């Protein structure tokens, strides 16, 4: 009988009218719990795999190489007080403004690090020129830097919305002043 398949209505024999008038109205009930379990297990799996694998990209544009035919072209002249040069080392940034080789050091910490330095410098240049977006950042990566520092510094440019920046090869001169700076720090910490 139908009632027995379901296992649901098997018991009530005493209360209601039993016997021939018992119409098989109740449909058999299937226990769906395992199916639901499996369903949600799969659901969780697919939800996790889809959201976990979404890599993002950071666009980078580098200047073209200077070739033979560009030799005669004068590089554009820029005022030295607009420029800040960052020498990026491992987790550390040495920087100087303009051409004066007074080196200072900072790091990538979000509140006190390079972001603050750049924002202050930008505000100063803005005040001097009365125009926005005048600051030019020159990024020189030092040899002991890691890829992470490279991404971090480009990220900083994106965070403070700095459009004018350039990746420049490091010069022996820059290496020297960093070494000198490190020596003076060792002497008087």
């Amino acid at each position: 009988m139908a009632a027995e398949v379901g296992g649901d209505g098997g018991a009530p024999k005493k209360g209601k009218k039993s016997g021939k008038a018992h119409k098989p109205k109740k449909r058999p009930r299937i226990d769906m719990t395992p199916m639901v379990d499996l369903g949600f297990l799969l659901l969780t799996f697919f939800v996790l795999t889809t959201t976990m694998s979404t890599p993002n990209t950071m666009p980078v544009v580098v200047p073209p190489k200077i070739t033979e035919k560009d030799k005669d072209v004068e590089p554009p002249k820029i005022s030295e007080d607009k420029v800040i040069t960052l020498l990026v080392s491992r987790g550390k940034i040495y920087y100087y403004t303009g051409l004066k080789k007074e080196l200072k050091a900072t790091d990538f910490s979000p509140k006190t690090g390079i972001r603050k330095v750049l924002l202050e410098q930008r505000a100063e240049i803005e005040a001097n020129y009365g125009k926005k977006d005048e600051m030019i950042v020159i990024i020189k990566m030092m040899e002991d830097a890691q890829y992470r520092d490279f991404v971090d510094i480009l990220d900083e440019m994106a965070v403070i919305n700095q459009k004018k920046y350039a990746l420049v090869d490091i010069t022996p001169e820059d290496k020297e002043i960093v070494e000198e700076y490190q020596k003076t720090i060792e002497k008087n910490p």
Partner: protein
Amino acid sequence: MAKFKAKKQNIAIDMTPMVDLAFLLITFFMLTVKFRAPESLEVHVPSSIADTPLPAQDIMVISVAPDATGKGGRVFFGVDSKHTRLAILEKIQERYGYEFDEQEKRLFSILPEIGVPFSQLKSYLNASEAERKRVDKISSIPIDSTNNELKDWILFARYSNPKIRIAIRADEKTPYPVIAQIIETLKDQKVHRFNLITTLEAQPKS
């Protein structure tokens, strides 16, 4: 009293709508999910605030990880489509004079990333899977200025698919000179626009 006892039945909740919903969602996710091909080179990419998703098509990925000494880097190369991979292999045959049979071609077309010099490619394709895994842990595409095979990989890939875009998937601990060498290689090929693959981190509030 007896009437109350008769009410002692199990409460059955109708789960049909829930199951319907669950399976609807499963179907949706199953259809939208795209499994990433297992990568030969293990790379831990740095995080950034960049939120542009990586395009799934027409892309070549240059993977970089630091080597055992921590001074140099290991470079792997991969493109997204089978078609492009086969075209690249054709170019390697033409340029370097190696002959690849059908089986080697088939294997090459399903490998997501390659990280061996051209000279070892044939033996790499004939090796067992375990042997390939072992080689993947130490090998690299040469990128020295004297022997820069990455240049050829990029050239062949762009020749095979002119629309292709370039992404660099580098480990955050890769020494910068290796990255500089790769950027230099790209510049030599007149590629001045490329992408760095990163994972998303929250934008700081200013």
